[in-house]
């Protein structure tokens, strides 16, 4: 039971974004690559929630898709319950693995097929894996699933456009739970929802986790939401994990300069009037990442070593951190 459910080791994914072949030949352009995920390592314990936060272009959505097998990793390993997922997905056992992990997406309008009835949408995993036989049984099971997310069984006969954003997200959750998975990857599930609707969906997700012992990977850019749902938090910047720590620790004592900057930047509804360090610069172009530590152009503590050498992830009393300044004890 102590072994983590998900173990990720040096995961990387590179996309080629070169100009078309003809342009390259005629204009002499070089091939271009984006290192969307550049050597990321973390674990997720059973029944726990790991949140990955970061700004646009940090690679968190790519990590989510790598874990469920939508992309194949360029480098590194992902182990689910001890098995290498890449090997399993490529083999006949892939279907069984799909049953055990599912995904919820950000856009409630695009994640449900507009031409399908809700019944078919939620029943698709059941039918695909042959889990339930017979029309009546399928209908019953779909009804159960809809009720478990706070909708009515009669909603199965309707179409997605008849529901609001929050309700559609619940339908997505119901679909994801159809195969009784152990692991749920949630890619910004509430970012497109209003605040009050978000509260409903987050409460449901918490309830389900407690009832069914689910493990979550929760992707978000909203630190306040993350603080509410996560057990552990990982902060990503330009494809790299800069800090991973238990929630309380990260929010109380952020170590990495980027984490500190992020926490400082959040608009403060409590209006505690705290002093803020001014935030500098913007996320650099992922096609031309800075050398060494990719955060150094914006970091108030950068030195020569930061500009030339990429910091490696180290364990520091239960916290993973990749920062020279922290390692050297400068901050």
């Amino acid at each position, binding site marked *: 039971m102590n072994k983590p459910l998900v173990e990720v080791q040096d995961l990387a994914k590179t996309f080629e974004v070169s100009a078309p072949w003809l342009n390259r030949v005629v204009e002499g352009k070089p091939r271009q690559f984006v290192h969307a995920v550049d050597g990321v390592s973390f674990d997720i314990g059973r029944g726990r929630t790991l949140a990955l936060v970061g700004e646009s272009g940090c690679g968190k959505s790519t990590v989510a898709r790598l874990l469920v097998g939508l992309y194949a990793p360029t480098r590194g390993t992902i182990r689910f319950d001890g098995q290498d997922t890449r090997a399993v997905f490529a083999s006949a056992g892939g279907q069984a693995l799909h049953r055990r992990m599912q995904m919820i997406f950000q856009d409630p309008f695009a994640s449900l097929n507009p031409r399908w009835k809700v019944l078919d949408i939620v029943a698709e995993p059941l039918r695909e894996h042959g889990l339930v036989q017979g029309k009546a049984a399928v209908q019953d099971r779909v009804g159960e699933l809809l009720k478990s997310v706070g909708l009515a069984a009669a909603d199965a006969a309707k179409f997605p456009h008849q529901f609001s954003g929050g309700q559609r997200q619940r339908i997505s959750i119901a679909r994801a739970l159809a195969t009784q998975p152990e692991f749920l990857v949630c890619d910004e599930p509430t970012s497109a929802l209003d605040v009050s609707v978000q509260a409903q969906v987050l409460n449901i997700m918490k309830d389900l986790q407690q009832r069914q012992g689910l493990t979550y990977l929760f992707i978000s850019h909203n630190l306040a939401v993350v603080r509410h749902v996560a057990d552990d938090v990982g902060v990503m910047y330009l494809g790299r994990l800069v800090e991973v720590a238990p929630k309380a620790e990260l929010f109380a004592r952020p170590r990495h300069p980027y984490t500190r900057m992020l926490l400082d930047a*959040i608009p403060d509804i409590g209006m505690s009037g705290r002093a803020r360090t001014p*935030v500098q610069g913007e996320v650099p172009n992922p096609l031309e990442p800075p050398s060494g530590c990719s955060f150094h152009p914006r970091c108030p503590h950068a030195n020569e070593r930061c500009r030339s050498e990429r910091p490696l992830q180290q364990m520091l009393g239960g916290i993973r951190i990749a920062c020279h300044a922290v390692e050297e004890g400068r901050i």
Partner: protein
Amino acid sequence: MSAPLLEVRHLSVDFPTRRGTLLAIDDVSFDIAPGEVLGVVGESGAGKSLTGAAIIGLLEPPGRIAGGEILLEGRRIDKLPHEDMRKLRGRHIGAIFQDPLTSLNPLYTVGRQLVETIRTHLPLSEKQARERAIALLADTGIPAPEARFDQYPHQFSGGMRQRVVIALALAAEPKLIVADEPTTALDVSIQAQIIALLKKVCREHGAAVMLVTHDMGVIAETCDRVAVMYAGRIVEIGPVADVIHRPAHPYTVGLMGSIPAMDEDRERLLQIDGAMPRLNAIPAGCAFNPRCPKVFDRCRVERPDLAQAGATRAACWLLASHGAAS
């Protein structure tokens, strides 16, 4: 107290469709004082963006102003002909929209767009306008403004583009700026920069701001007063600190409770069951009554007006100033 800069009185906006007329904004009234920052907050469908659009005069047909008045410095602007409204926009009212990518013309340099806006509204020569434009770019924190003057929008990053949009909005020294979700499309760290910038330049240029957003945190950081909208109506309005920490209207209470806060741990977020009503199904009486935990009979029948509730004003029959049943 000086005369208000903007007065909105009993504004109503509706959309005639073949299935009937949908009332999107229903009898909304508020003022903005010179130099003040008023936040308009609400969830999707509440009508906050429409209110901004009605004030700027950019309502998309078939939407139209169905009633009420909008007065800028005492002059009515809601019934102005197109040409006059066009002159008003830019010179007296500036606008900042959500997506900086579509707010700027990709075919012209940033400098050209700035100079054109300035010269349209102010009697300046080309050289003077250029100097003013560069000063504006510097004001909005764009490094090396002389060089950036001749660059195209696609050569700027998202945050930089939004700074240019702010500069454009301020170009003709308007007294009022209507900003519709100016930071929603930006990253968190850039958001903080833009919010600080907006506050600073508006204060320096003496412009009042109407900030429309769904993000309560942004409101808390920037605004002096805030109006909370629900189903096309204002349900509460008052100083920011009071609305956030001592809300009077049950919807505002629910809204504040459902926002995960950075400074406390809660097992469950407060949730308001149900959803905002669709425009063709707005309940009689108080629009919030089907979802209100404190509803009673009068709420289902009569629509409450705004009444004093401590430091804020709220539209709720529960308030003592309405003489409601305790």
